[in-house]
């Protein structure tokens, strides 16, 4: 088993169009590093030098990781991570 990561439309150019990809790791940070190895450029759209990008929502199963531990959130095989761009504006 691995961790399923659901990718939004706007980032599928990094995954050859795939709606979901698989990765591994014990934290969200490790998972994103693992994904980066196979999908170069993806991590940079999710994370900046301060942590998770402000206008990207990441959910572990059905919880927003901002209310868990951000990039330090623990993940394990069988989890589903969902990435959604925040819908926002002025």
């Amino acid at each position, binding site marked *: 088993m691995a961790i399923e990561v659901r990718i*939004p439309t706007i980032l599928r150019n990094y995954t050859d169009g795939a709606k979901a990809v698989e990765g591994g790791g014990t934290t969200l940070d490790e998972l994103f590093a693992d994904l980066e190895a196979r999908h170069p450029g993806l991590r940079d759209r999710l994370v900046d030098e301060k942590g998770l990008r402000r*206008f990207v929502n990441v959910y572990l199963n059905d919880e927003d990781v901002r209310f868990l531990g951000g990039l330090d959130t623990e993940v394990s095989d069988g989890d589903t991570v969902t990435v*959604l761009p*925040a*819908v*926002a*504006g*002025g």
Partner: protein
Amino acid sequence: MLTIERAIVDQIVSHARADHPDEACGVVAGPSGSDRPTRFVPMANAERSPTFYRFDSMEQFHVWKEMDDRDEEPVVVYHSHTATEAYPSRTDISYASEPNAHYVLVSTRDADTEFRSYRIIDGKVTEEEVTVVGAYEPDSVS
């Protein structure tokens, strides 16, 4: 071009009017690939602000999951401007993240509500014609 039913336009305008002077926001879902907005989904503006909007992250998660389960996509993403014209702001353009969506802007500044639609892709805004119909034609896909 955006083709949309009158009843849905009225629901969007009513939502914008009800939340004025704060910005209102939401989506209209439709079958994936159909380009036809059919299911009106008003969303909370987590910012509760007259100058900014953001979908509540948990509400967005549930709405997006429901669309996924129903093989739908956000055909329309709408929000209101309450003191300026119905044209995408700089922040609207920089955060636009649904390349397949019609971005509908409503302005509640005046008594007559302005209702306009745009494509926003890679930071480029293109206004499009809005065709309001009584009901969608059966089988036709715009």
